[in-house]
């Protein structure tokens, strides 16, 4: 490969100037990711405090009030309505005013003292299946604790003591915000590389570069180095926001994390270059990007646990750089794990980045001629 450092430096300067010249592009490159992190950092919350609940209490006794109180006291449920009839419970779930319905039968307090106990009904709107699963679990625990407290007698035979490691408060943001960092960085790499190259081709300015003495590898490096710089700056900026604004603990070593970020950016840029080689117009590049991005995010374990996917898809996630990057970022932020434990993910990320870059290096010169 004929590579002249001075020519590359000139090309990088020209590209950087072009990127930084337009104030709107500057905002899009540096401010937008920060705003997005803040907005989406709040959104990626699977905790369900104050799940709306409608209660139909046919018993109206002290015991039934204690039960409702037990539900509310946990903070997981908020009673939004107490209609008198069962039919109103159906309406509330239908129109979405409540996600959970609790129905306490007549004679609840009376049956509570009997040997075979009593029963209550909990109805959940299953259209939010995650919220529903979590809410059902909480409801069962609350009722069990209530039952044990109401029935006088010997202490329970087994007591379980639960502790959550790494994230004692079980806050989902701590787990999800690092995921948002990955998505935003990837987005920036793809966007600037793929559309940047295709745009020059559409405008015809790529031909001008072709007649210059720049060789294809020089051209490629000159195009991608400024993009990589922008992506690294973005990654640092939004990580700082994650740590300072959202109080996400960064327990791992920043330099090791930076290595992962660089590998991930290399992979992202390589995919961007590959997209630019198969797209003739920016619209095609946009669609190809989308075609890559949505599977890459959904199969990364960002919101859907990989262990719940069918076996074939679990294998497919192994060639997804986002998956490995997220595992590194999450483990490094939350558990303070370093390369010593995460080396398989580092190796996988390096292999994927290397393969994609090699493919881009091979394909890119041909695409220039096309």
């Amino acid at each position, binding site marked *: 490969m004929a590579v002249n450092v001075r020519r590359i430096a000139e090309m990088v300067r020209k590209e950087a100037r072009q990127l930084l010249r337009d104030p709107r592009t500057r905002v*899009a490159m540096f401010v*937008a990711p920060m705003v997005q992190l803040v907005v989406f950092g*709040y*959104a*990626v919350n699977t*905790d*369900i405090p104050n799940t*709306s609940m409608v209660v139909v209490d046919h018993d109206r006794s002290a015991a039934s009030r204690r039960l409702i109180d037990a539900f509310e006291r946990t903070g997981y449920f908020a009673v939004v309505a107490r209609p008198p009839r069962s039919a109103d419970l159906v309406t509330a779930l*239908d129109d*979405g005013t409540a996600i959970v319905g609790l129905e306490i039968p007549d004679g609840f307090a009376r049956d*509570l003292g009997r*040997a*075979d106990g*009593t029963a*209550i*009904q*909990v109805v*959940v*709107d*299953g*259209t939010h*299946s*995650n919220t*529903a*699963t979590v809410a059902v*679990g909480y*409801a069962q625990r609350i009722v*069990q604790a209530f*039952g044990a407290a109401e029935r006088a*007698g*010997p202490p*329970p*035979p*087994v*007591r379980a*003591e639960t502790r*959550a*490691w790494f*994230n004692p408060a*079980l806050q*989902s943001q*701590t*787990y999800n915000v690092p995921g948002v960092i990955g*998505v935003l960085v990837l987005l920036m790499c793809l*966007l600037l590389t793929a559309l940047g190259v295709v745009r020059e081709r559409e*405008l015809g300015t790529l031909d001008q570069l072709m007649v210059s003495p720049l060789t294809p590898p020089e051209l490629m490096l000159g195009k991608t180095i400024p993009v990589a710089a922008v992506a690294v700056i973005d990654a640092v900026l939004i990580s700082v926001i994650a740590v300072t604004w959202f109080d996400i603990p960064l327990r791992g070593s920043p330099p090791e994390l930076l290595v992962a970020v660089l590998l991930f950016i290399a992979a992202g840029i390589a995919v961007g270059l590959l997209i630019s080689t198969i797209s003739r117009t920016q*619209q*095609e590049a*946009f*669609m190809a990007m*989308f075609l890559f991005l949505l599977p890459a995010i959904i199969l990364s374990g960002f*919101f*859907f646990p990989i*262990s*719940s996917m069918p076996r074939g*898809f679990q294998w497919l996630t192994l060639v997804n750089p986002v998956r490995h990057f997220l595992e590194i970022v999450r483990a490094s932020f*939350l*558990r303070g*794990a370093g390369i010593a*434990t995460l080396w398989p993910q580092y190796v996988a990320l390096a292999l994927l980045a290397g393969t994609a870059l090699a493919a881009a290096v091979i394909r890119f010169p041909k695409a220039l001629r096309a």
Partner: protein
Amino acid sequence: MNLRRTMALARKEALQLRRDSRSLALAFLLPVFLIVFFGYAISFDVRNLELAVLDQDRSSASRALVSAFESSGYFTIVERLERYGDVEPLLERGGARLVLAVPPDFSARLGGGRTASLQMLLDGGDANTATIAQNYAEVIVNRFALSRGPTRAAAVDVRTRVWFNETLESRNMIVPGLVAVIMSIIAAMLTALTIAREWERGTMEQLVATPVRRSEVIVGKLIPYAAIGALDVAIAAVAGIVLFDVPFRGSVALLAALTLLFLFGALGLGVFISAAVKSQVLATQAAIMATYLPALLLSGFIFSISAMPLVLRVLTHVVPARYYVTVTKGIFLKGVGMSVLWPDALAMLLFASVGLGLAYRAFHKEIA
């Protein structure tokens, strides 16, 4: 507005689209591909959670407890630990979601009528899965305790029923939601570049020289894309119903009508972005910022809106996908009609008018 001129523009746009066979193929194949792909791949269902057991008691009681975990179907034993010191390294490398530690005096205390204690250690990293695992585990332990205790029946029995999605199959929730998310992205993608492209290529000057009006350009450009979008929804919905047995309980006509309403808003937004920024790179980025992540994260598709802070809950009201997700879930799973969905329909109508209005204002028919 002149109908003939509008239709002529629509024909020109359709011709251009037809010639760009790759974009057209992507526009049709993308939704089907994504629905099929994700219908199979995604699941919120938490099953086979990795469980590690540290049984220091090795009694019939402790074995009964462990088998209660196994037979629940929620946990799979991946490791049996020997020493307490093994717990920490295991959790650190992410080897298990839950560690169940049974102390040596478990069966002795249980048999002696005293309270036996257990320890359950969760990997709290993935808070959502950890919460679900904790709930399952505590219910299993409580059932076990009841079966060993003096009274066989629980004081209160919870009869849980899940409506609209009886088996809590997350696919049923995901497919209708995904239709909405994919459509809001595709709609913006189809139109975001349409005007910016004409500016960049210089063909806008040719359009400007003709007698067409602004509104005619906008509507003419929308018609072919709206047709593609409507077909996309139909294909995706049929794929979801046929391949994944997602229930469809509502009215087809209502879904079609509300889909069109949604599409005009979403397409209008795309045209607005395109006309406002005039550059394809910026238009792409703006379209992704305005549709892609908001549709995924702020629509209530994955993360429930009620759990968001107030500012963000307010913000979700300007995400059209939010209304459309409610509509698709409502029609598919609940079978509700206009009596329930009218606020969402109204919001989408408002959105479509504002989107088209903004597009009209942003699009100037003169050469700068």
